[in-house]
């Protein structure tokens, strides 16, 4: 293993490859900040450039840099303007954005950068140690376990619901899953619930929904409430970039836990960074002491560190099934898999034996990418956060414009924008009505995978027997039921105690 690592390190540490990491991280961060352009689209765009380089190691180093840069860039737009361009950074906006609004944009970005670095680094170390072992565990999971895992992810919704809002959060989750069923499902070719609109044939576009639910209502709220936007303008003043010793001590265990958890979730094909970030957030909220728990959703540093760490660790974990089994664990790794094949590298069980230099070069480039990203982005944070000092009359139209363009790019479809505006107006009303929106987006993201795995499991077992036939499925489902019941009992108990 040591020989392989040294060979990988040797391949990465050449001036040209270091330049590739630098270029990749910079481009990824910059483009990733544009809502709508997530790691998947950026890597897809960069593949022709990477292939032109000829050398697989250089190409993968460039793409890894772009990948990590794009994830950090996505977190930046989530934190600063509440416009998460990709599903994996939605959870970062729950506490990152309130922190930015409270004048702690610099601190929020620093925590995001450090958590991402730590999550990515621990993920790489775990990848090196456990890649062969974990790939065999992932092989034990079949659709029934994946279905149970999706249910667990959806019931984590309880973590996002404040007191007395559990049923509202559940209703929003169901509504999100309903939206995910629009269009063709993976198992059936016939389109459903399209109402004859051709543009809905392939379902609601993720970016359209996420921009409609998060960025547009935020812009509308800023217009409706002038005081709110003035507080945002003030939040651009980066007086406090550093995190205190107490804060570092507070987030250290969160980072430790979420690095491992995120990595393990990332290893499971299909689960990926999104589920890792939501579950990480949910777990940390439940683990937090009561006083701290109330801060979640209002600017908790634990609430920001958890999804950021889990997200990055899961991104690294998703490389395990790709490199060891040839199965992409996420959309992004599916594109990277395509790039590897185009570069005449065949990922799979034999890669580690046949081309160890490539295997280890990928892993080492991820590690170097993490370090470069930290060195590159920490000094840039004050300049990135200056984005918020843009006057209100320019900031709001630009937030709206970026949201609209994010949904339009790649689709070239005006109907998509109209759907998004409709969703934005609906989300504004839901917010006024006290309905939490994060559960809706979780339902939408996991809905497709939920139906797919439920269908496969039911077809294989001939009914719902799969739920109790396999102990692992039963255990995960029981955990999900527990997560569902716990907040309801807690809600019922608390008022009586107060009385």
């Amino acid at each position, binding site marked *: 293993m040591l020989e392989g690592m040294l060979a990988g390190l040797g391949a990465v540490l050449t001036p040209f490859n270091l330049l590739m990491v630098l270029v990749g991280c910079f481009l990824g961060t910059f483009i990733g900040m544009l809502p709508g352009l997530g790691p998947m689209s950026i890597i897809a765009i960069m593949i022709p450039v990477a292939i032109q380089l000829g050398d697989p190691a250089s190409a993968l180093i460039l793409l890894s840099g772009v990948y990590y840069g794009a994830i950090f860039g996505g977190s930046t737009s989530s934190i600063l303007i509440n416009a998460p361009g990709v599903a994996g950074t939605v959870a970062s906006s729950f506490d990152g954005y309130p922190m930015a609004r409270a004048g702690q944009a610099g601190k929020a970005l620093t925590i995001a950068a450090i958590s991402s670095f730590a999550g990515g680094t621990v993920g790489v170390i775990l990848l090196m140690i456990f890649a062969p072992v974990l790939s065999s565990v992932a092989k034990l999971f079949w659709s029934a376990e994946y279905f149970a895992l999706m249910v667990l992810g959806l019931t984590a919704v309880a973590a996002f619901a404040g007191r007395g809002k559990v049923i509202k959060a559940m209703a929003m989750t169901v509504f999100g899953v309903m939206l995910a069923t629009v269009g063709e499902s993976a198992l059936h070719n016939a389109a459903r619930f399209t109402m004859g609109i051709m543009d809905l044939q392939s379902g609601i576009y993720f970016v359209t929904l996420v921009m409609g639910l998060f960025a547009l209502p935020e812009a509308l709220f800023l217009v409706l409430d002038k005081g709110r936007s003035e507080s945002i303008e003030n939040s651009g003043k980066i007086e406090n970039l550093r995190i205190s010793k107490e804060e570092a001590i507070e987030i250290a265990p969160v980072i430790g836990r979420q690095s491992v958890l995120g990595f393990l979730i990332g290893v499971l094909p299909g689960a990926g960074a999104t589920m890792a970030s939501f579950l990480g957030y949910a777990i940390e909220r439940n683990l937090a002491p009561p006083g701290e728990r109330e801060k979640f959703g209002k600017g908790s540093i634990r609430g920001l560190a958890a999804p950021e760490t889990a997200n990055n660790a899961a991104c690294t974990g998703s490389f395990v099934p790709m490199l060891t089994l040839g199965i992409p664990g996420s959309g992004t790794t599916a594109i990277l898999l395509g790039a590897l094949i185009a570069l005449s590298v065949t990922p799979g069980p034999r890669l580690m034996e046949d081309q160890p230099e490539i295997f280890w070069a990928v892993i080492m480039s991820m590690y170097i990418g993490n370090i470069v990203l930290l060195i590159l982005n920490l000094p840039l944070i004050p300049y990135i956060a200056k984005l918020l000092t843009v006057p209100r009359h320019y900031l709001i139209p630009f937030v709206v414009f970026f949201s609209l363009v994010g949904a339009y790019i790649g689709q070239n479809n005006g109907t998509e924008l109209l759907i998004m505006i409709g969703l934005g107006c609906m989300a504004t009303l839901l917010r*006024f009505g006290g309905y939490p929106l994060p559960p809706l987006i979780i339902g939408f993201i996991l809905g497709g995978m939920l139906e797919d795995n439920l269908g496969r499991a039911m077809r294989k077992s001939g009914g719902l027997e799969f739920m109790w036939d396999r102990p692992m499925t039963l255990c995960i489902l029981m955990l999900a039921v527990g997560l569902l019941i716990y907040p309801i009992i807690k809600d019922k108990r608390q008022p009586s105690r107060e009385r």
Partner: protein
Amino acid sequence: MIRLDRCIAIALFAFSIGYGYLAWIHPILPFEVRMPFKPNTMPLGLAGLGILLSGLLIISSHNDDFVKDAEGWRGFAWKQAILLVVFMVLYALFLRMSGFILATTLFLVAGSRLLGEKNYVRSSFIGLFASVLIWYLVDPILGIYLAPLPSMGGQ
């Protein structure tokens, strides 16, 4: 007066019934009839859950947040928000027809004017600069087609 959160619960209830009805009438192909999992299996379950949860919300709605928000209901700049939505709709409708640069510049100028920018020259310059920059980044650099001008809109 009926509270907003209850109105939303009623809308969700109606939506769930409509969704359930569409799922119920969804055509099932002959070979799917005996399958344990049909295209409408999960939607029917979701409709049931939606009806149950929104029904519970209608019965039990007591929303302190809304009462709090409603106090400031009149103080909000509704006219500006509605006009911004109108601008968004116009942008969506005319984006392909007028080309990215023209539509975006006009949207940014109109949006900033609506929110208090008095200087047309400055807003036009910023709008034009931003739209050209984004177009340049997206189309020539990243290679994602984005028609810049009306003549190149090519419907």
